[in-house]
Structures are given as C-alpha cells and as structure tokens.
C-alpha cells in the first residue's frame, strides 16, 4: 500500500518515546510512543478526554513531559523537546517552533485586532530585519526584507484564497477563513512539521472537503509533514497515512487506515463494548 511505502522508506521526523504527562494525580498521557514519518500525514484520534491535546502540547513545547522523550529529527540533527524547555526565564517553548514545529489551536488563536497580513508578518519574524536602528531609519536593507516578507505573506494568502481580505482585521473574518488563516500563519514560520489541532472543527462539509485537499497540498507541494488531531472520521480516513488512537491516555491502536478501522480496541473505545466481548 501507498502509505506503507512511505512509512518504510521515510525516516521519522518526530519520535515520541514513552511520553508520560501527569497533572498532580491525574495521568493524562501514560507511556505513549509513536513515530511520525517524514512526509506523512499522521492522525491522532480518540474520544474526548483521551489526552490528544496534551500530547500536542508536549510536542510543541507548551507542557514539559513528566517522563519520556520527544525527538525532532532533521537529518543527522536531533533535538529533544524536553531539553529545550530548561531555559531559564523564557521556558524555551518558543525554541520548539524555531526547531521547525508549527501548530494551530483547537480554539483559534489569531491576533484578532491586527490585519490578516500582519498576522502572517508576525509569523515571519525569523526572516525579517530585526535591527532596531535600521528599522527606525527605514533603511533600504530593512525595506527590502520587509517587502519580501509581505510578498511571502501574499503568496500564502493566495494559496489559502484569502488575498481579498489581506488588509481586513483577522477577527472580522468568517470562522472558516480564520481556520485557514491560522494554518497560513503557522506555515509562514517555514515549518517541517505542522501540528493541526482539530482543523475541521466548526467547518461545514464543503469546507471540510476543501480542508482535506489543502492538507494534501501542503504535504505534496510544500514538503511539510502533517500531524493532526481530528474528530471528523471521514477526513481522517481520507487523508491519513498513519493513525494513532488514544484512549485514557494510552495508545490503544496504531497503524494504517485499514488496520485501525478494523481494530476491535478502537471500535470498543468509540462505540463501547458489552461485557461479553471484553
């Protein structure tokens, strides 16, 4: 199968190794391990409260894992997320994004009182001329880089079909467009791995279909690996190469679409199981 081919050939871009995250006495993630192959679309599914978003927050550096390792691999270069988070004062969470992991949020987090374009410009701060004096003098070098970032922003707006709204406030956009803008914004950080937290939540069926095309295009044309949390099973089954199923903070199944679809543990978790079958 196509997806198996990718899994066997491509090296892992993200390795989650026995990740455990405890909040006081509650174990949100218990010994979770999975790999995300480079260039794949991997879905993280499970019932509500299964610990999916906690895994996301650990991967993107918003939580520190209680134990276990999360490795971001880039060729020979490997970064351990937990090690990044030991920076004094800053907490280091922003370093995860700089290591090439971008994310979106379950409840959209745009800069609402800034324009759509500015949202994308903020995301490109790694590519802009951040020198205070050159900026204040509006030097040629500064303006040139600024124009380049504006152009890259327009490029992404074109892809997301949002160019007409470039100078509108982000908070004024319709919900579906805000979702697309958030994806565009995280893509502007030039990530290698993009983590989408329920990208289809609140979208109508047509928008969901466009979203699945968009995610495929991101992988195909922009060479980005996708890890997503999603409840829309149609979307997940359509586009995923690999699915990891969580329940009660544990991985209960993992594999390609077919194997997960037929896994008794998954069916039990979603539909419930009677005493006899357990």
């Amino acid at each position, binding site marked *: 199968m196509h997806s198996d081919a990718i899994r066997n050939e491509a090296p892992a871009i993200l390795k989650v190794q026995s990740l455990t995250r405890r909040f006081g006495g509650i174990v949100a993630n218990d010994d979770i391990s999975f790999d995300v192959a480079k260039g794949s679309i991997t879905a993280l599914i499970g019932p509500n409260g299964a610990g999916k978003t906690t895994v996301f927050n650990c991967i*993107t*550096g*918003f939580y520190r894992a209680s134990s276990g390792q999360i490795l971001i691999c880039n060729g020979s270069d490997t970064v351990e997320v937990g090690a990044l988070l030991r920076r004094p*004062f*800053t907490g280091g*969470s*922003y*370093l995860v*994004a*700089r290591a090439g992991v*971008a*994310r979106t*949020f379950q409840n959209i*987090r*745009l*800069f*609402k*009182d*800034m*324009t759509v*374009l*500015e949202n994308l*410009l*903020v*995301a490109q*701060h*790694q590519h*802009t*001329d*951040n020198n*205070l004096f050159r*900026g*204040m003098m*509006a030097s*040629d070098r*500064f*303006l*040139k880089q*600024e*124009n380049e970032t*504006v*152009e890259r*922003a*327009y490029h992404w707006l074109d892809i997301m079909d949002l*160019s007409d709204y*470039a*100078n*509108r*406030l982000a908070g004024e956009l319709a919900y579906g467009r805000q979702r697309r803008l958030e994806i565009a*914004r*995280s893509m502007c*950080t030039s990530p290698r791995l993009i983590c989408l937290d329920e990208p289809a939540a609140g979208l109508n069926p047509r928008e969901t279909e466009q979203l699945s095309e968009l995610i495929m295009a991101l992988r195909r044309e922009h060479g980005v690996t996708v890890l997503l949390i999603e409840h829309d099973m149609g979307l997940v089954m359509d586009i995923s190469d690999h699915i990891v199923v969580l329940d009660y903070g544990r991985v209960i199944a993992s594999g390609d679409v077919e194997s997960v679809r037929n896994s008794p543990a998954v069916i039990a978790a979603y539909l419930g199981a009677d005493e006899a079958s357990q």
Partner: protein
Amino acid sequence: MTTARALDAIQTQSTGIDFLHSLKEASIAGILTMVVLGPITNLVLDQYDFHFYPLREPILVNGIMLGFVVALGRLFFSLLVQTRSGHDLMQRIGRHSAVSTDTDHDRPRRKKRHIVPALTLSLLASAILATLGLTGAIHKGAAFALILVVLFVWLSYGISVPKRRGEPNSWRISVPLLFAAGFLLPIVLNQAGLLPKVWLSNLTLALIYVLLGLGLNIVVGMAGLLDLGYVAFYAVGAYFLALGAQYLEMGFWTALVLAPLLAAASGAILGFPVLRMHGDYLAIVTLGFGEIIRLVLTNWVDFTGGPNGMPAPAPTFFGLEFSRRASEGHEPFHTFFNLPYSGDYKALFIYLILFAIVAIMLRFLNRLRYMPIGRSWEALREDEVACRSLGINHVNVKLSAFMLGAVTGGVAGVFFATYQGFINPSSFNFFESVLILSIVVLGGMGSTLGIIIAALALTLLPELLRDFAAYRVLIFGLLMIMMMIWRPYGLIRPRRPTFPARVPHAQ
C-alpha cells in the same frame, strides 16, 4: 435621534439646508440649558430674598450665557450635519469598530487631497487665535502658544504618515517646513514679546507629557502590559540629572545621553520579576515598583535630600550658561552675545531642545508599528500563547517593551528636572502615573496622534481655564466617564498599517 433625522433630510432633499429646523432645535437646546442651569447659577440667595443676576460673573459659568453657547453650538452642528462634508465626518465619528485599517496609506493620492484643506484650516485657526490674542480677548501668550500647539499637532501628523519605497509621500516637504516653523516661531514670538516665559514653560511641560504618553503607549498601548508605576522611570531620569550634577559634576547633556540607558536598565529590572504576570497582577506589581522608587527617594535623605529635594542644573549652550552670573570658568550666554540679561533665554532654549527631541522620538516611535518589534508587541498583547507557537521569544519582546518605554520616560524626566530647576519626590507620586495612563487611554491606546492631542489637552487646558481650577478634577473625572461611554477606544482610533498587494521588487 435628531441627527439621524437631519441625515434623512439630506437624502430626501439633497439640495437645501433646513435652517428653520436647525433654528428650532437650537432654541430648544438653549432654553433647556437655561432652565436647568439658570436657577443654579443666576439666582443668588441674599438674606431672605432671591435675586436674579443675568450677567453674573464669571461669565462663562453663567447658566444664561451657557444657554446661548449651547444654542449656538447646536445650530452649528445641526447645519454641519446637513452639509456633505459634515455628513461624512459624522459617519466617520459614528463608526463603532474598535480598530480600523489604514486605507488612507493605500492611496497616497487621496492623502494629498487632505493636506491642502488641513493646512488652510490650521492657518485659519492660527489667524483667529492671533487676532483673539492681539485684541486681548484671550491672553496674548495663550493665543500664540495655541498656535504653536496647532503647528505641533500638524507636524506630528505629518511625521506619522509612513515612508514607503517607490511611493510619493506628500509630507516629505511639509514635515521639514513645519519643523523649521515650529523651531523658529517661538524665538521670533518670544523676542516680539508675544510669547512670555510662562507660556514657554507651559508648552515645555506639555511636551514632557507628550513624551511620557508616547513612552507609556509602548508598554500599555502596544504591548498590552498595564503599567501603573510608569512614573518611576520618569523619576529615574529626573533624579539622574540632579544626583549626577551633585555628585559627579554631570551636565545636562551628559545626563540626557546617559539617563535613557539607566532608565532602560531599571526597565529591565522591573521587567524580570513580572515576566509571568498578566493584567491585574502586573498592574499591582508595577504600582509597587513606582512606590518603592518614590519611597527610596523620600527616605534616603543623605543621598537624595529626601523630601527637601535637590537642585537640577540648566542646560548649557556650547558651554555658555543661562544664569545671570556664570560659575567659575564659564561665560553667561547673554554677555557672550552682547544681549541684555533675560530669564526667557533659558526657557526658550529648553523648549527648543525638547521640541527637537520630541520630533525625533516621534519619527522613531512611529516607525515601530511598521517594524517587526512593534508587531511582536502587538501580537503579544493579542495572544501570548500564539506568539510562542510562532517562535517569538516572548521574554525578549516584553523586556524590550519595558525598556523602550522606560527610555522615553527617562528622557522626559531629564527635561522635567532641568525645566523645574529643582525636584523632590512629590512630583513622582501615584497620581502622576494615573495622569499619564489617562493620557494614553483618552488619546486612544496605540494611536500616536491621539495621545499627543490628549497630552496637550490635559496639560494646557488647566492652564487656559485657570478660573475653573477648583473644578479641575471634577471635569477630569466627567471627561473620563464620557469618553469611556462614547469613545471607549480613545480620541483617535488606532489604525492598522496596511500593505498593498504585490509590492514592486527592488531593482
């Protein structure tokens, strides 16, 4: 609403202006005002009788006179909304969205159209003020000071129009001209005896508050960090000059260069403990910081002179002093240039340096919104979590906001100390922080021009309306309440910078 009816009137009969209707509205408004206020101000209880004084002094708080003023105002507005441009104006004021995008900057040509009427209007206003001043209707100094204020507002507006590559900026010539006018006019006016020292000092204080407002705007307006102890940095700048002069024989110019650095350092010191704080908690901690600085200054009597304060030196003009008799080894300004001694030179000189520095600061601070650092501040205000997810070092961004805000406050402090010639801790109390914060809130958080207007209004109006000094805080409070109800986003809504599609490539 009557305005709405007036608007309907234009739509139906687009040619005529309904004078009769306006007149009716105006008389109703005027009579109502007289009925409500007349008994309060014009009836005087005398022994066991009431006496009616229609022209009771002060004439401006006389209810009958206020009635006429209100009627005139109502008539003016009623007629204004019936004209095309007035209609447009009302529409713009009536818009309720918090932030608007800056479409004007998209279309430089449209902007150009605004300049001519704007300059004509300000020239007209200046002419009226000058006549009022020369005929003695208002104080001469006040009239000419207001002309300088009008000039300064236009200068700051011109500075705020951003420079774009390959686009004509119609303000490119006007800004240097306005600057030159603002720099030379005070000298001419002062020498002609039209701008006395008192009003030069008032203008200096107003510009100091403009600086403070701009500095706090970085922290509160842009980065969204509610800082109630901003006056601490102001004190740091002021005391740096006074203490430096006392112990290190430091002059004004040295202090002007070094005080921002010290203020930035104290900004960083304040910044570190509050990195993890938001909103109310941050406000409380910054409030504490401001009070600590003030209490240290008050209680460290041996070093700072405590409540007795300290003298601060005046600036020198290339080594020439402005005092009547110079200290040893120095020459006074007036003997060097063979002029009669006058205290005005010092006030004039301080005003001119401050004017130049404010203009330069404005130029730089305006750029911030078009720079990555300014955008990061605003992004941080909107959503810190999203900032971190985009790889923005939120700690550096916060610290830089505190530090740049503190730098501006430090510069203002140096000017305050040299302007007063003497400082003590009571100038840096909590009310001062509140005043600066209200300048930022009234002006419109994030809007440079709004803050400038608010700073000028809040510092100069009390001087203009000396008669009402007793009602100052009352009026201030009423103003705040009215602003929060009708214009919660401040005098001038901040506008987002816009970027046209397809920027032409640099060759």
